[in-house]
């Protein structure tokens, strides 16, 4: 019997397990909102994490990342929340690649100087800007020079194969997993994936069997989605508890640590 599963189904959350949700949006949204203010976001996001047994979450802004909006406002919101809960949230800055090169570099510089070490892209929803378009190539170069993680809702397999080879020192993370990603995950050591998908029966088991547990990270696409939607498939999967713990938090912690983005309190848990 899996101890991780047993605790979860007993309603205890995930005791003795480092849990990092690697895929969260926070703040205003296009058709809805999660929290009205940074203060409310800080308080209620921690409350939700506590209720599920989640130690920390990786977050990008919400609707301000979408086409037509000023992404800097979303980044401002993100920074405000992060300052209140630095032990619980890992910020992922966002840009719109349709903006000018100088504005994008300027925002990367601003956020880097604030201490942000991770980037989340959503170019598919930004007029489907190509994943290897010129402004994103500049961004990958920036990430390579500054040792930053690049996370994206989706790249095409062709594009991620190209850029992951061109920037071998950059960690690239898919926002969503499906088995169409297996060839990339199996051939590129610097490409990983968040799990969140409305997957079918056994989809996560097959993914782990095909690609290895080290490639997968918990992600719920909260806070519009419930956090449990990401945890459920992992705890019920048929893999070992060691593998579940890797996916629930250890894999993400390891990657965040390589760019200096893992909060100190979690580093202690991680190293222990």
């Amino acid at each position, binding site marked *: 019997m899996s101890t991780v599963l047993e605790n979860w189904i007993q309603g205890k959350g995930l005791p003795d397990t480092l849990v990092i949700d690697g895929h969260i949006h926070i703040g205003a949204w296009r058709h809805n909102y999660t929290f009205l203010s940074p203060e409310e976001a800080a308080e209620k996001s921690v409350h939700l994490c*506590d209720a*599920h047994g989640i130690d920390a979450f990786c977050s990008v802004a919400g609707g301000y990342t979408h086409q037509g909006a000023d992404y800097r406002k979303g980044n401002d919101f993100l920074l405000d929340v992060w300052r209140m809960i630095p032990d619980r949230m890992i910020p992922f800055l966002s840009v719109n690649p349709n903006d000018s090169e100088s504005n994008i570099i300027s925002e990367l510089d601003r956020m880097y100087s604030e201490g942000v070490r991770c980037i989340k892209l959503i170019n598919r929803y930004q007029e489907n800007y190509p994943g290897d378009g010129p402004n994103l190539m500049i961004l990958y170069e920036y990430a390579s020079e500054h040792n930053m993680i690049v996370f994206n809702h989706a790249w095409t397999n062709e594009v991620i194969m190209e850029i992951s080879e061109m920037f071998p020192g950059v960690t690239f993370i898919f926002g969503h997993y499906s088995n169409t990603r297996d060839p990339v995950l199996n051939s590129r050591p610097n490409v990983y994936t968040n799990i969140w998908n409305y997957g079918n029966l056994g989809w996560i088991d097959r993914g782990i069997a095909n690609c290895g547990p080290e490639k997968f990270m918990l992600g719920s696409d909260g806070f519009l989605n419930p956090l449990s939607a990401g*945890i459920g*498939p992992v705890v019920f999967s048929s893999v070992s508890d060691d593998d579940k713990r890797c996916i629930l938090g250890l894999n993400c912690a390891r990657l965040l640590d390589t760019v200096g983005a893992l909060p100190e309190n979690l580093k202690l848990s991680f190293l222990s």
Partner: protein
Amino acid sequence: MEATQKAPSLDDLELFDTCCTLGTGVFTGVSEWITPENVIAILDRYHIKEALVHDHHARFIYPREHGNTRLLETVNNIKRLHPVWVIDPPKQPGKGPAENLVGSMLNAGVQAVRFRMNTIPSCAWIWKDLCTALEKHSLPCFLDFGDVSTRGDVSDTDVTGIREICLAHPGLPFVLSHVMGGLGVHPAIMYLIRRVPNLYIDITGILEYWRETAREAGPERVLFATGMPFTEPGILISNIQYAAGFTDEEKKLMAGSNLRRLLGNVQ
């Protein structure tokens, strides 16, 4: 880390799945199907106490009777599985054909039905004879808007039609099923549920909207479902177990008690 607020245990929730599809097929991404050989092991693995089950092919291959008959052979003597037939209104008008169909279903032990709303339009006059026959027995009717999988969508015309059908048969419980298409539910659904007291919603395909329904219209109107094998059961099971803002008793209603109450009313 340990949760700071304990959620109810799964076994305390006594899960009753309203949507489990039995049978095999070919569908992109789906490589594990639910068969007579593995169904009990799957229910056990996910701590599902009971399930309403229907045949995969009965939802989209004619004659539906083939799938419905195969279903009865599969669930024969397995008390945890409750067969659901997928049926269309008889083309011949009048009470007789509809009552015969309902009678044969009840004789076979079928206590719930699934209507394929994207096959037969939601015109009240088409459904009148069948719903009148079903209403005498209060059988729960699932209004299934899904495609081959459990993804589906509802149109403006559907919304109007559902309202007319449900209000014309107040003694018949109707359950919206597979009304989520990936980007959300039709904005009229909540208006409909608030105005039609015998309308419920199952949570197949829905991560968040069911909570809004439960808050706005009451947890009595929400029915748990996994949608397996098209959806990994752990997603929606954990979703309801750890849902924020509901008491354990409310979660228990949605997890299974609501459906047991509806089936208990079948005459």
